[in-house]
């Protein structure tokens, strides 16, 4: 059953108990994301150090299990990655959600890949893809420090 793919144990867990939820004092980059059609919101905070490495990352927001889990897993994976790595991971994730059957990047462990692949269940739920990608697009905004909000209606 597809629902089981969508709401895997790991998603339910991260959805209910999102990691890295909150804000921290000395962030130096941030961005807000918003899906106006459903009201999902996410605010990503980053501390990027002199080597362009994410030394800390947290998020605030509310939304469905998918978007919360996606933000939670994303923040876990991004810590200590540098700009290039971040971009590679984001691209890999977005491609996977859209077309690719698998993740290709070698930057994360097989365990982490499994974790991230748990979000692939949304592929069968086109209206829910935006829930999964909102935090990632917001991270892009934060990294490039675009002013204003990311709005998931913008892309694809």
């Amino acid at each position: 059953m597809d629902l089981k793919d969508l709401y895997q144990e790991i998603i339910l867990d991260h959805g209910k108990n999102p990691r890295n939820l909150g804000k921290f004092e000395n962030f130096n980059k941030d961005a807000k994301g918003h899906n106006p059609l459903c009201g999902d919101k996410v605010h990503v905070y980053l501390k990027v150090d002199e080597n362009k490495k994410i030394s800390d990352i947290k998020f605030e927001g509310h939304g469905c299990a998918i978007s919360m889990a996606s933000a939670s897993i994303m923040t876990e994976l991004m810590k200590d990655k540098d700009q290039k790595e971040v971009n590679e991971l984001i691209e890999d994730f977005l491609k996977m959600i859209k077309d690719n059957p698998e993740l290709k990047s070698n930057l994360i462990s097989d365990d982490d890949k499994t974790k991230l692949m748990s979000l692939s269940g949304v592929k069968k739920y086109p209206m829910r893809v935006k829930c999964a990608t909102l935090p990632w697009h917001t991270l892009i905004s934060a990294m490039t420090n675009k002013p204003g909000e990311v709005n998931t209606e913008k892309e694809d």
Partner: protein
Amino acid sequence: MNIKDIKKEFPIFDNKVHNNDLVYLDSANSSQKPKVVVDRIYDFYTKEFSNVGRSVHYLAVAATNLYENTRVLVQKYINAKDPNEIVFTKGATEAINLVANTFGQKYLKEGDEILITELEHHSNYVPWHYLRKSKGVKINFADVDENGDISIESIEKKITPKTKILAITHLSNVTGAILPIKEIIQLAHSKNIPVLVDGCQGAPHLKLDMQDLDCDFYAISCHKMYGPTGLGVLYAKKKWLEELPPYQGGGGMIGEVKKEGITFGDLPNKYEAGTMATAQVIAFGESINFINKLGIEKIEEHERELTKYGEEVLRKNNSVKLIGNPKNKGSVLSFTLDGVHPHDIATILDEDGVAIRAGHHCCQILHEKLGLAATARASLGVYNTKEDLDQLNNSINKCIKIFNS
């Protein structure tokens, strides 16, 4: 036609969704269409199609008569005084924009106030918001109470000597509150304030009588009323349609057109610029006929019973929190589940063929007041049954199971 097996009149229910029967509980968003309406569109395009009003040939004459016939059907359905008080628009949203724009142009100036409520759909707020910028008016919001209701007092409290128009919903698309609009209109009129009623949720579910209500404007969304998409109705008292300036400009709405200036046509043409939604208007006549055949009183009764049943079933379910407990509730059951986000509810219900809506339902102000980012909403139409509501409850239990396992 027996209301108990009215589903048969709606071909959509012959289809399966994820191998399940369709339990359609999203009628506040848009209703399904009876076969007679769809057939009318088909026949019009394949046997009778022509543009309206401009040509003298056979098909054009026939189409024009059919088109004007719907105007009269709508007039009678809502008991307006005159068919020329019925303006066809592309939707209720356009109807409200039309009033806000033309009323604003003609009557509003800096410092004037517009009164709406915290219950309003974005369609009954954004068009007025534009006048803040263009005219410097202020918008006041009557408070919604903890039951998701608007009382006459809450309106009275916000009326000031500067209030120039009141725009208010008939039936909330979130809490289901049926507002005491007749009394509210009387109150407003006693202070010389005209009233626009957003009737999107009123018109499909409640018996209407414009002359009795005495509202100045009433906006209707035809696709929520067993009619085609791309069509709305603005009812407006004749004096307003005569006094207000035209809205969109184009063919058919003019009198004389010269390089130096333009005179405008009479009603009903003045507000129907360009080629209208001919096929949709003609088919909407069948929607009215369909409702009339059942009898709007019967529909009201059927839906009242269903709403009550739905409330009972959901109140018995301890995980469900119903949103709004208004005095007079119509056809809308919004709810939340502890620990399950409305979007996740909608997805899980959909797997069982149960179609509901999740989100802010174009009512962000209300959701902010409720302290919720989103709610789940089951809304009813004439074709729904108690079994549909039982299925809703069963599927809700499935959500709970998935999320709490």
